């Protein structure tokens, strides 16, 4: 099955038997991002075991998340869900005193149809702490889409723009109090409607992107999510929003439909090319003329030369698990790599339209065919294709990384791209550092011999990997 986007770009769809992280993993980065939050995952031992192992050492640092572990009595409705959750939330309030509790619904709460959305407002009123509900379950979503469900829920709690008007007034008063410096600052920005960016990024990257836009005299009024729940940005009619990550399609839809915001559909600020296109699109929407963007991009590419020499002409295969694949592939093609396949869990062709267009343009510019995009990939088919294509690099989940390395295929764990700082021009180097690490390692081990380290007589391997 394949769907045409335009004459040149098609998206195939496979069986969906692929390995990825469960979307509840989003708590691992979101609890760190939103400092005053507490995440309560309502699920079973399976969910807990996954988090415990996936989060590794973080678990011992008294994280602001916990499992509400469902027992047999909860499943068969012998116990009262509301009373159970109330008891746990009161304990969390007592021990941690968060500004918001976020309930993460799981597969189990879906199947037993636990009415989290119905209970939350009641309990919120009773205990006096905002309670958000995000259904980040494996029945519907993959890995990073978990963040999407949380941010979509959070969008409803953003204050109205009236509030921001008041804020602006306060700001003016402040300016009067410190006339010399603050006034100067205000004039740095062009006169444009309020702009809110969405997507959870480390605070350093937030500053970097704010700075990139400030250079073009664009002011970022706020981020969804902010560093603290209590600092959520104002949203509403006339506010422009723009995403920084490709997996935020539900959040985008919520912002458009429920919050009446205007969405700026841009490629994502990953790589210098993506960052430039992202800024250009925002500026063009606001009618602001860009300054020095081209030179800046050139400068960044220039500084990446040593890495580019390493990757040029090398081939790469994305197995797909975190939805960053199209943006990363686009960047790597621009770096001179050949992309054989872009596996991706889910493709929102509307939300990613600008990114897909940039991919197509990049391919034309670099004179390479557009790679096949495979939605809901099938890992065993992909392994067969990997065997035939033998790419220089496979970007894959941890379940396949070691087995592929043992067969002489260099790999990079896809999960690292989710946790590393890859946004904005300034981080392009870090991104290439990740991509080239397996290639550099391989170069260092060149004279060590033995690229394939599996026994040939293994029966399973014979069917998957017959050495030619």
């Amino acid at each position, binding site marked *: 099955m394949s769907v045409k986007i335009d004459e040149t770009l098609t998206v195939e769809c496979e069986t*969906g038997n692929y390995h990825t992280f469960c979307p509840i993993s989003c708590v691992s980065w979101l609890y760190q991002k939103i400092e005053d939050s507490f995440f309560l995952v309502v699920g079973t031992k399976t969910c*807990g075991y996954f988090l415990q192992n996936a989060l590794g050492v973080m678990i011992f640092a008294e994280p602001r998340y916990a499992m509400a572990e469902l*027992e047999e009595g*909860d499943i068969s409705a012998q116990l009262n869900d509301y009373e159970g959750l109330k008891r746990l939330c009161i304990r969390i309030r007592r021990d941690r005193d968060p500004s918001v509790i976020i309930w993460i619904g799981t597969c189990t709460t879906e199947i037993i149809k636990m009415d989290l959305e119905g209970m939350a407002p009641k309990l919120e009123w009773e205990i006096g702490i905002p309670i958000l509900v995000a259904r980040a379950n494996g029945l519907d979503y993959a890995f990073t889409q978990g963040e999407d469900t949380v941010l979509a829920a959070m969008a409803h709690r953003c204050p109205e723009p009236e509030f921001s008007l008041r804020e602006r007034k306060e700001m003016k008063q402040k300016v009067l109090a410190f006339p010399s410096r603050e006034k100067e600052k205000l004039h740095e920005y062009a006169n444009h409607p309020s702009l809110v960016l969405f997507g959870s990024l480390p605070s350093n990257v937030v500053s970097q992107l704010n700075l990139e836009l400030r250079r073009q005299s664009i002011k970022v009024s706020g981020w969804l999510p902010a560093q603290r729940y209590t600092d959520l940005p104002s949203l509403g009619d006339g506010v422009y929003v723009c995403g920084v990550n490709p997996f935020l399609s539900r959040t985008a839809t919520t912002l458009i439909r429920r919050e009446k915001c205007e969405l700026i559909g841009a490629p994502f600020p990953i790589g210098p090319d993506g960052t430039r296109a992202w800024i250009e699109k925002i500026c063009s929407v606001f009618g602001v003329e860009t300054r020095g963007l081209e030179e800046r991009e050139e400068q960044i590419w220039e500084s990446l030369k040593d890495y580019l020499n390493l990757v040029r002409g090398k081939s790469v295969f994305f197995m797909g698990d975190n939805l960053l694949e199209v943006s990363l592939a686009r960047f790597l093609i621009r770096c001179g790599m050949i992309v054989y396949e872009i596996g991706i869990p889910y493709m929102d062709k509307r939300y990613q339209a600008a990114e897909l267009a940039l991919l197509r343009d990049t391919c034309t510019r670099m004179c390479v065919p557009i790679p096949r995009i495979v939605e809901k990939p099938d890992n065993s088919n992909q392994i067969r294709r990997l065997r035939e294509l033998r790419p220089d690099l496979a970007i894959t989940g941890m379940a396949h990384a070691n087995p592929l390395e043992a067969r002489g295929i260099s790999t990079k764990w896809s999960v690292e791209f989710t946790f590393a700082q890859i946004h904005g021009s300034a981080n392009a180097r870090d991104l290439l550092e990740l991509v080239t690490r397996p290639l550099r390692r391989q170069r260092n081990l060149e004279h060590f011999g033995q690229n394939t380290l599996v026994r040939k007589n293994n029966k399973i391997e014979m069917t998957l990997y017959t050495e030619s």
Partner: protein
Amino acid sequence: MKLAYWMYAGPAHIGTLRVASSFKNVHAIMHAPLGDDYMNVMRSMLERERDFTAATASIVDRHVLARGSQKRVMDNILRKDQEERPDLIILTPTCTSSILQEDLANFVERASLISNSSVIFADVDHYQVNENQAADRTLEQVVRYYLDRSHTQEALDQFVTNVPSVNIIGIFTLGFHNQHDCRELRRLLRDLDIGINQIIPEGGAVEDLKDLPKAWLNLIPYREVGLMTAMYLNKEYAMPYISTTPMGAVDIAECIRQIHKKIDTLASGSSNKRVDCEAFIDAQTRFVSQAAWFSRSIDCQNLTGKKTVVFGDATHAASITKILAREMGIHVSCAGTFCKHDAEWFKEQIQGFCDEILITDDHAEVGDMIARAEPSAIFGTQMERHIGKRLDIPCGVISAPVHIQNFTLGYRPFLGYEGTNQIADLVYNSFALGMEEHLLDIFGGHDTKEIMDKSLFTNIGLIWNPESRLELSKIPRFVREKVEKNTEKFAQQKGIKTITVEVMYAAKEAFGT
């Protein structure tokens, strides 16, 4: 509903998958939503497994909820059957399928009619059993399946081997030091001139399981997994089994004596010359293993009466408690296990070797106990290691759950005579480190000179404005100093006097840090 941050034993399906993926050419298919195939990651990362883990998921998604999973489960089974031709496919339920209550056993029956592989449905209930119990059950189920089948086909050859031989049952993937223990057991049995009939499930072939009864007896090194199989074989095929864990000099001797006794009874009449077991035990204990000598040495004298706490699975916690108390003369304040289902056995084993017994699977309770006992060293799981870190008490890891550093490349058995050496090192090193720390504390550290941390580039007339100062503080500590230096160097080169956030990131781009 209970609040939980951490669990000692994983969910049931992990146990089933571990057993399935330990056998050769067995494929497990999980009936699970996307993301539940986490065992693959653990096996690939922790065990550094070179082969693809033969476990895949038959994904439960919205469509399955609406239409039922029969078609998809059947398709997936038949596809695996054709693609990889496994000997056996095990359909594994998860917490999700436990609630859906579809008749998975029926799908399996239908699939097995068409497929070349044997297909069975793992009989484990997510809400009743944990990882270890499920592994125990699954192993028994697989063994029973193949023996029953041979029985009905009358293909069962029940004659025992000519020379005495044993089956080692319960060595499998992601087990704590299982690979090393297995090698040590092989060595021990070879020294005793006893053959090994089969080792299951690790590396075993299911088609060979019909030959299990050819062994004279079964050896179950760990209580958690293998006992059910041993009991089944005992009941159906009258095979004796030994479940004394050969960990620590005293128990190794006990285990060897039991094996000998069993073999002697079975071999009565045969004129086979046997290894003199008492002489063997004596030589090994006194001269091959260093542990007995170590206990007598002056080093170990210093450990007399030191307080410790032990926590782990039933096998390891009980054995280590006994080793500490009776082989090293160390005071065990409290010993505990998270294997609640085996509490009676545990209590009986360590009776008299410790002051207090703790049976719990709540890590907070263990933490409180440790804080209360204030031991000089802890012997526990990774969780206890972290509790120790927080309380500044050294910890030796003696039981799962564990991290990657416990899957060592080097040879580190816990069982057998080499195991006693490894355990002695582990115990001694934990204490020695603790003592060193303590001395350092008393005398105020190695180096009492004022610490020089003035960086080269400060005090050269550069001013960090408040925003950039704040920004700098957000950068992780281990790179902060480098960023600071580079930024100042950059500012100097450019003749910038005040460092702003912009300057910081311009420097980052310039230096590529």
